[in-house]
């Protein structure tokens, strides 16, 4: 500004000197009273410690909007948290944050939060005091014999997980069901068998080419911000990375592919075997380490057969495979739509085998090392636990269950029979922030703090270059006096069982201080004492941990031959979306109003179909249709998109809530409810992507039928240069990449 006095700085100077005059004219600068004893006018002349009026201060914490565990910075001003941003000190998200993380403040300030404990009496939930709630809890849990008690949660890690495990021990039970709709449980099983590590570190940034079979790594995945950051490096490397996405419904990641290939749903294993066939028999890559039964399976799938089954052209298969062999190291990924098939394990194994053949293991798939605190590691959810839970409850093996961080009443397919299972459980407790479906079905509801009010630690399951324990601290005072932190509730439960052991901790904060003090000096990073270590951990939000170096094994397991149903008709893709995710964020208005990335629809459900498929059934864009499976039907609008295979229809997840507050309730439909209860035989995970459906038109398009951003089905640039596209050769010449 070169010292020039402009209008604004003039006013500013005047303002300051004006304030000075006011102060010197006043006897008591701390409190200026308008009328003696009546009203304090300028309380901020003597603000609270650490509060500078008008200045926002950023505090580090950890996001819990999904299980990725990104580090955040929250801007706090005058005691309120206003804005969340990524914490640059964390290797998971490197200072970046996705839309769900940004919207975390809307969960915290949500008008539909539960503000008091509630107990079921006479059929409905009525407010009770914490004293009564805890007394009932102690009585009921005291009357349950050990193995008839269970915890039902989402993915959980850190010290909360330790306390939960300890509570199970104290109860004499081992039943911890961890349920996540968006999960990679099948990949974890395959990785464990083939690589010796369930969660190896994926290095997209080191790959010259990625072939992704339905892995929406930048969308609703295990760590979207992390993989988006790696994707940016992959694209800006000296040699620009090449992305080929093969799936039946275009995902967010598919939208960024150099080549997007539509594949007949359920035939991905055949394509992977066909590519292996080309690699071994045409390109003559070594078949070392491949078991003979798998080799004979590969040899059954020559190109012509694969083309017939998958619907992908022979040229494309050959070209993509050729490039994979040329551009080493590459990376082949399997995603939810592959894992969630009736033969999910076999299909995922067939795809992961390509990494072995291409020699990618150790180059783009690394060992994550040995995390020195196994008890803090994430207990990752899947759907096998959901199935096991329902079976146990149906068999009347559970008398008391505590639910937290998962909403099974919403997300369990009707065909599993959850309603019956729930009615068999005598005492259901929900530790919950919102009146979601599961909470409304509980007998006792304990209101929990939002993650912006609570203490905790998180250990991200998806491994990055720098492994760490992420620290979660309250960014502001509680909004509601009657909510309690998850850690505090766990500690209270433990005190009810093991007073002598846990009585020493006044609250969860005291427990955490104690746990941090007990950490080995190797992680304390030269802190002089425990206070200094604690303060440093709160300041940066991360405790860096040396996980050591390990090598992965690279083996191929035997897997079942693909089974392809030629007369499958239409397959339903229940696609999770970055935003509403598995439905947990349907109560956040920013995310409801953010258009779906591919279809651009807001505030609704819809079914995506290829125009050719729709035309055969006489369905037009935005027509009302009925989607029928063997388990039930849903009515919704059709959105015709070419990013679909003709044999697939997709209904995005997230809507169809019967409870969950004003923003979520009564919007759209829930496709999870009409899924078959088929499971993958090897892992027991639900085959969520294998339900067959029929679609029929039941009504015409009308105004307000569906609301979307943009011009409708075409969405063409109409000859304008809005988004220009250039071939990579041109960029190689001009920019040398």
């Amino acid at each position: 500004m070169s010292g020039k006095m402009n209008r604004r700085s003039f006013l500013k100077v005047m303002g300051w000197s004006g304030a000075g005059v006011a102060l010197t004219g006043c006897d008591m600068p701390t409190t200026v009273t308008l009328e003696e004893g009546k009203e304090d006018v300028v309380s901020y002349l003597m603000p609270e410690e650490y509060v500078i009026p008008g200045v926002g201060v950023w505090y580090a914490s950890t996001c819990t909007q999904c299980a990725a565990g990104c580090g955040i910075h929250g801007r706090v001003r005058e005691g309120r948290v206003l804005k969340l941003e990524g914490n640059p000190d964390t290797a998971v998200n490197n200072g970046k944050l996705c839309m769900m993380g940004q919207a975390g403040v809307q969960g915290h300030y949500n008008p539909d939060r539960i503000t008091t404990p509630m107990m079921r009496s006479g059929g409905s939930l009525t407010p009770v005091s914490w004293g009564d709630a805890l007394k009932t809890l102690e009585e009921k849990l005291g009357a349950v014999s050990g193995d008839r008690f269970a915890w039902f949660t989402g993915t959980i890690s850190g010290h909360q997980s330790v306390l939960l495990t300890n509570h199970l021990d104290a109860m004499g039970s081992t039943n911890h069901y961890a349920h996540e709709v968006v999960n990679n449980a099948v990949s974890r099983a395959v990785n464990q068998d083939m690589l010796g590590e369930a969660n190896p570190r994926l290095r997209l940034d080191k790959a010259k080419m990625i072939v992704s079979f339905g892995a929406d790594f930048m969308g609703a995945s295990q760590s979207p911000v992390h993989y988006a950051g790696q994707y940016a490096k992959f694209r800006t490397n000296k040699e620009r990375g090449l992305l080929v996405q093969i799936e039946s419904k275009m995902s967010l990641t598919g939208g960024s592919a150099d080549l997007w290939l539509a594949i007949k749903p359920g035939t991905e294993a055949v394509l992977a075997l066909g590519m292996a066939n080309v690699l071994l028999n045409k390109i003559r890559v070594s078949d070392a380490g491949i078991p003979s039964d798998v080799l004979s399976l590969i040899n059954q799938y020559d190109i012509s057969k694969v083309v017939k089954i998958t619907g992908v052209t022979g040229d494309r298969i050959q070209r993509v495979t050729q490039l994979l062999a040329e551009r080493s190291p590459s990376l082949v990924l399997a995603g939810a739509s592959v894992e969630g098939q009736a033969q999910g394990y076999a299909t995922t194994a067939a795809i992961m085998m390509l990494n072995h053949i291409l020699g990618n293991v150790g180059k783009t798939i690394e060992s994550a090392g040995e995390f020195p605190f196994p008890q803090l590691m994430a207990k990752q959810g899947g759907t096998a636990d959901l199935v096991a839970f329902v079976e146990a409850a149906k068999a009347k093996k559970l008398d008391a269950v505590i639910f937290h961080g998962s909403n099974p009443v919403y997300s369990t397919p009707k065909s599993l029979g959850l309603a019956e299972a729930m009615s068999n459980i005598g005492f259901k407790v929900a530790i919950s922030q919102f009146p979601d479906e599961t909470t409304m079905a509980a007998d006792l509801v304990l209101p929990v703090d939002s993650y912006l009010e609570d203490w905790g630690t998180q250990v991200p399951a998806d491994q990055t270059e720098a492994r760490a324990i992420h620290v979660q601290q309250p960014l502001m005072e509680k909004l509601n006096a009657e909510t309690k932190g998850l850690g505090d509730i766990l500690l209270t439960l433990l005190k009810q069982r093991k007073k002598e052991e846990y009585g020493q901790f006044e609250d969860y904060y005291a427990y955490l201080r104690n746990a941090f003090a007990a950490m080995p000096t190797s992680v304390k990073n030269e802190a002089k004492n425990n206070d200094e270590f604690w303060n440093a951990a709160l300041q940066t939000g991360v405790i860096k941990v040396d996980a050591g170096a390990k090598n992965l094994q690279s083996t191929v397991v035997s897997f079942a031959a693909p089974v392809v149903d030629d007369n499958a008709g239409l397959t339903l893709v229940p696609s999770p979306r970055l935003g509403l995710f598995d439905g947990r964020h349907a109560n956040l208005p920013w995310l409801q109003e953010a258009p779906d990335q591919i279809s651009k629809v807001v505030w609704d459900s819809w079914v995506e179909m290829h125009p050719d498929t729709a035309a055969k059934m006489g369905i037009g864009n935005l027509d009302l249709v009925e989607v029928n499976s063997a388990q039930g039907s849903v009515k919704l609008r059709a959105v015709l998109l070419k990013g679909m295979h003709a044999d697939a229809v997709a209904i995005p997840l997230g809507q169809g809530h019967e409870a969950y507050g004003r923003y979520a309730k009564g919007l759209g439909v829930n496709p999870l409810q009409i899924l078959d209860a088929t499971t993958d035989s090897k892992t027991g995970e639900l085959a969520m992507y294998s339900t067959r459906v029929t679609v029929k038109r039941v009504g015409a398009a009308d105004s307000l039928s569906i609301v979307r951003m943009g011009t409708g089905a075409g969405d063409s640039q109409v000859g304008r240069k809005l988004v220009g596209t250039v071939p990579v050769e041109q960029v190689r010449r001009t920019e040398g990449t």
Partner: protein
Amino acid sequence: MSLNNILNHWSDYRKGAEEGGHHEYEHRWAMAINLDLCTGCNACSTACYAENNLAVVGKERFEKGQAMHWMRIERYWDQQELEHPEQGASFLPMMCQQCGAATCEPVCPVAATYHTPDGLNAQVYNRCIGSRYCSNNCPFRVRYFNFYSYYESAWPEPMEQQLNPDISVRDKGVMEKCTFCMQRIRSVKDTAFMEDRKVKDGEVVPACAQSCPTSAIVFGDTMDEDSMVNKLWKKHQVERGVYQKTKLAKKDADLRGYRIFEELNVDPSVMYLERVREDI
């Protein structure tokens, strides 16, 4: 402000822009958005809602085109002749382009939208009378009108506590749009002034650029020779005040930088880098 006055100043300004600028600019804030890195994920858009007190309008009003998304992701389908979009989708983050020769400015009857010494199109909410001429004249459709008092429904208690106190909540009858996070610029400029130094490159980061998981958005001052954004503009031979009929003015027409609707000569402050695809 008489009509005569407006017309005089307008032609004066237009001539000035071509000769290097009529204004005595202090800064010229600008963006470079790499469309090859944009994945259309909506992080920028949601960050904008959080930073700028944007109201959620609901389904019915969204349908009428009244959504207040200052930063929106447009999605286009190319290759419409093919059975499938084999090169994926074309995503375009679109916000106010802060034109150097903005078409919204001269039509405002009350000069509520004007050009700041920072090179931004500022909107003075208190002055706006809601004629909506500016929105009508904007080729990018990035101005958003408050048809209702959204604050009555958008932030039910206690959601209003999230509102950013650095900027206002707009009321019915007022036009609003992307400000390049004016409040963040303001705060950094104030700090620099107090410390008697220049604003450093990278000090001002708008909410969208801050959140972008792939760092597709680069923000900075093109008057700062060493700024990243200035280097990118130079590298791609996109210049202010030089009206390029598409790419004709460039020495190397194959460079990726371009501004949308260049042919309208509105001199936008946002340069996009073309999406890259490998044809295999």
